[in-house]
């Protein structure tokens, strides 16, 4: 086979090296195609051990090899996968050793309607795996916070809705409003910084509402950024998220201690109605008085039983024991006390008479006394009880003696009565 005669071979065959040719190709390509946006589908994505990633970008007509260096790969807000439609920003480079050209990626982002959904799902999966959403991390809100922080935009209805609801429910709780940008460039960073700042600067805040009113998925996007989730996660102050409407779920919602459906709902969650709290306190107060009252009733029924020789509410044996103990005490005091405390003994005798009279009187008027007791319960004091016939015996260290086994013969005792004290010494003890 012979070559056609008209083929334009140069007269002289002056060759250049492969290297020279490649250098010319390289110069031609790299000078003419600087940075470009390229749309295509990722295939054959291969992360290397070095941290660099390699893949092919293709469409129906062609394909190009791509290199994604480690620092760029680490900065991406999503994880590239085979089959994903992307926009790549980069420059063409000729790799001389292999005689290949490739696209050096400087930035990469998902393309099309699913792009934000991809970023959302991927970040959600990542943070969930790290435990940022664990139910065990969620903290309960205090019944009534000492102070409330609000991180939101100064414009828009969300802030006014929250303030109106908070102040109408409980106007005594201080509110601190930290204005931030909630959408657009830098919004996520501002929100995150505000959460961090309040944690450092405002130790009295017991709860923080972070949120904004409704909007498109792009408007709400700041609340889907990792930096906001990290700030919520690190917050010492419990956080209520209130982003958009009931149907909007953001990464911030998953990370927060409590997700509110709307800003108004958040306000309702952080403070109860003051009137309801006051009602509850009234109930607690009544319960407290009733509890003391029934304890006092029990004591009085024992005394009444002793005086009348009938056990009104208590088994008779208990009453007899009590009566005997009182008699015995009286007797022992008479024997044990020397001249120096004769006056004290007189006082005791006097007290005993008065108490007996009172009891006799009281026995006839049990009902009236119950009423009067109820009326005076708030003012009741240990002194008043002593007036009704009790005494308190203490050891020298001040500990109340409740059992014979708490004392030893020879030990000094102090007995407190309504009008003073008696100091005595234990002769012997008898256990029943």
């Amino acid at each position, binding site marked *: 086979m012979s070559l056609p005669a008209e083929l334009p071979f140069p007269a002289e065959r002056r060759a250049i090296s492969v290297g020279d040719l490649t250098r010319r190709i390289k110069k031609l390509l790299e000078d003419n195609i600087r940075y470009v946006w390229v749309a295509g589908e990722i295939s054959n994505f291969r992360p290397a051990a070095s941290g660099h990633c390699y893949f092919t970008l293709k469409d129906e007509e062609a394909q190009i090899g791509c290199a994604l260096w480690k620092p760029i790969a680490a900065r991406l807000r999503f994880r590239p996968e085979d089959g994903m439609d992307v926009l790549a920003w980069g420059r063409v480079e000729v790799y001389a050793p292999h005689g290949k050209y490739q696209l050096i990626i400087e930035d990469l982002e998902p393309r099309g309607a699913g792009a934000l959904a991809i970023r959302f799902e991927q970040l959600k999966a990542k943070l969930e795996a790290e435990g940022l959403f664990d139910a065990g991390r969620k903290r309960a809100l205090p019944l009534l916070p000492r102070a409330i922080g609000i991180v939101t935009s100064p*414009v828009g209805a969300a802030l*006014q809705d929250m303030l109106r609801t908070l*102040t109408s429910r409980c*106007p005594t709780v201080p509110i*601190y409003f930290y204005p931030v940008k909630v959408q657009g460039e830098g919004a996520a960073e501002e929100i995150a910084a505000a959460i961090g700042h309040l944690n450092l600067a405002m130790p009295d805040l017991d709860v923080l509402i972070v949120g904004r009113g409704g909007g498109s998925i792009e408007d709400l996007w700041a609340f889907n950024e990792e930096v906001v989730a990290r700030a919520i996660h690190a917050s*010492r102050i419990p956080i209520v998220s209130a982003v958009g409407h009931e149907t909007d779920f953001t990464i911030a919602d998953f990370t927060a201690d409590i997700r509110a459906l709307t800003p108004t709902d958040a306000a309702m969650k952080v403070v109860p109605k003051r009137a309801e709290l006051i009602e509850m306190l009234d109930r607690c107060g009544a319960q407290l008085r009733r*509890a003391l009252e029934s304890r006092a009733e029990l004591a009085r029924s024992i005394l009444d039983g002793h005086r009348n020789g009938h056990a009104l509410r208590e088994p008779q044996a208990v009453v007899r024991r009590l009566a005997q103990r009182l008699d015995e005490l009286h007797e022992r005091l008479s024997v044990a006390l020397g001249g120096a405390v004769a006056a004290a003994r007189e006082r005791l005798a006097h007290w005993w008479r008065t108490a007996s009279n009172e009891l006799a009187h009281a026995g006839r008027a049990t009902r009236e006394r119950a009423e009067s007791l109820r009326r005076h319960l708030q003012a009741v004091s240990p002194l008043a*009880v002593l007036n009704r016939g*009790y005494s308190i015996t203490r050891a020298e260290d001040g500990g109340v003696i409740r059992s014979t086994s708490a004392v030893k013969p020879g030990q000094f005792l102090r007995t407190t009565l309504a009008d003073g004290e008696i100091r005595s010494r234990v002769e012997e003890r008898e256990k029943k």
Partner: protein
Amino acid sequence: MNSDRTPPKKARFEDYLKQVEETVKALESGKLGLEESLERFQAGKIALDECYRILQEAEKKIQILVKDKDGTLNAAAYEAPNAETRSARRKAESL
């Protein structure tokens, strides 16, 4: 990690309320002596009064936090924009 997330301890409304509830429980148990019952009742009453005091404090002004040049937060009284200025702004934004 968890200790970093615990709010600082300082008596709050619910701490006082808890004291009241515990007092009621202790009194109702019937295990306390008369003298101790009275002491507990009085302590419970003080805690209850503290709860009322918190709820009866004066109404609080809303504060807006403003960051100054060196980054410290200053609180100032917050004035809600009234309906007119808000609708005016909305109008301005739509133009």
